[in-house]
């Protein structure tokens, strides 16, 4: 990857996500994909674990890991979306625009 900051950001996000999955998700399967498109890098991390209620997690003041992901991405104008529902697993979508960094 040409840009080291992107590389480190993606690495940390993946690390954090895997950490969460191992600690909380009780998943039996995780799909991790990093795709290199012309315009963006797209990282998706999907697990089939227990999932969670996003609002509830935020109310309880948890989700520091997600917050740090968001901060890292903000620094390089990246996009983060976390989708989860109790019982429906969790999926993370990260998109980093290549053009905005040139």
């Amino acid at each position, binding site marked *: 990857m040409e840009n080291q900051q992107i590389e480190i950001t993606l690495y940390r996000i993946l690390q954090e996500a895997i950490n969460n999955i191992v600690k909380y998700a009780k998943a039996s399967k995780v799909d991790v*994909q990093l*795709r290199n498109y012309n315009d963006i890098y797209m990282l*998706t991390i999907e697990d*089939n674990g227990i999932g969670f209620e996003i609002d509830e997690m935020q109310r309880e003041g948890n989700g520091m890991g997600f917050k740090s992901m968001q901060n890292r991405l903000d620094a390089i104008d990246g996009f983060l979306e976390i989708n989860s529902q109790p019982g429906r697993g969790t999926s993370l979508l990260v998109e980093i625009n290549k053009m905005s960094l040139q």
Partner: protein
Amino acid sequence: MSRIKLFLVDDHKMIREGLKLFLNDYEEIDIVGEAENGKECLDQLEETYPDIVITDLNMPVMDGLELTKALKLSHPEIKVMALTMMGESQHIKEMLAEGALGYLLKNCSEEELIMGIKNVYNGGTYYSPEVTNVIINNIRKVKPTTSKVASEMPLTEREKEVLHLILKENSNKEIAEILFISVRTVDAHKRNLLDKTGSKNVAGLVLYAIDRQLFDDV
């Protein structure tokens, strides 16, 4: 019922002997002749008058395809069935184009062979299931999607779910609602689906899913 007069053409004696051995158990079938190649078969037709010629494809002197062509000209009433190890679409297409009414692979069961012979004799056709698949794929003109993709990447569970909902004619918004994800995530999955399957649009995805038989209900 009159007996079905069969003529066997195969360059391997073992194959002919094996076929005769078990076809002899069937009263309704009468093996009237055999030959090692197409030419030998043609030479014996006037004495044997078979209803059906069962022929191998790859043979010296005159192969199965040439024999089928020759029979179509000289004896169009004689039915031709191919019995071969070759299941490639080119061979199947050529044989069918020349009027072969049956195409069986040599790994077929005895029951299948008998059924095929009876079908063809009674004015029908018979093709092994593998052969039917090849024919259908040809009609559909769906070239294996793999050719467009350097190395095929498996779809994730989520991607399969999204694909399934696309095939069910759901909009991005509907898919988002059904899966409790955002439209943007649906877009991302869709983009990955198009990229992974080498499709240019939703039509390509549909063909991919049908071709791989990904879903029972589509």
